[in-house]
């Protein structure tokens, strides 16, 4: 399979993540959608690294994976704080700053 097949697969994954990001109401569901999108980006990096040669793409993907894990840790801590303060993690209820 050529590079474009992998890129199309990654684009589909990213689009599904966008859909989840818009439609999900629960904060954890939104985090899961963000994970899908980050995963699509990593797939892109590795596919380019494979077809264009060189190891930089894989190194970058490793950095991206580690940063995503840190992001999930902080995001879940925020979700837990939100739950403790409000008793609910549905994001459409967090509308105090809406004009």
């Amino acid at each position, binding site marked *: 399979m050529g590079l474009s097949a992998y890129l199309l697969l990654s684009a589909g994954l990213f689009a599904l993540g966008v859909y989840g990001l818009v439609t999900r109401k629960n904060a954890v569901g939104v985090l*899961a959608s963000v994970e899908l999108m980050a995963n699509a980006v990593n797939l892109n990096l590795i596919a380019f690294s494979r077809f264009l040669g060189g190891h930089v793409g894989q190194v970058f993907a490793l950095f991206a994976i580690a940063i995503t894990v840190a992001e999930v840790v902080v995001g879940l801590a925020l979700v837990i704080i939100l739950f403790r303060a409000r008793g609910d993690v549905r994001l459409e209820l967090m509308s105090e700053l809406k004009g």
Partner: protein
Amino acid sequence: MLGQIGFGVVAVMLLFTAFRVVTARNLVHTVLWLGLALAVTAVVYVMLGAHFLAAIQIILYTGGVLTLMLFGVMLTHRDEGFVAVQNPSGRYVAGGLLAVSVFAMLAAAIVRTPSLPATPAPPVSTEALGAAFLTEQVLAFEVLSLLLLVAAVGAIVMARRRDAGEEGESQGAVLPERKVLPLRQPQPDAESAPVAARASGGDA
């Protein structure tokens, strides 16, 4: 030929699991589908010759992130979280349109790019990756380790429950929580219904 069939099967599995991640009603199911999607992505990494990254993906994502997210779901779980929340259908339409247009844009860009390589370059060995980490990328590597440390400490500090035994800010921290508690139990929907209605009106 066999490679194409394998790629097709894996691609369909990946897209289906991702679709279930964004459409499953039950949040626990969402997280489990996410784990499956990330594991199938590891299979794609193997097909791309990135064996080390596939192993890292399995260990970090399905081992660490998945467990964390399950903890997150269950710690913030409430009964009505498992009932289908009434969702304004306008949000689904908007999300679908946005996703389709994003995909169309990316696909058009990919298809119209001339001369994308069709044959892979020689695979990168794990040795080369490790050497790159400790020589040319060593600054980024160290910064990353600092980032992980800060994230871990920050998450612990943020999510720590402040006990009443603590001095100082403990009174300020305990008091609002005690005030919120009685509000939480009797009627979750009475206050959420008008807010949801307002949100749907804003969407439409």
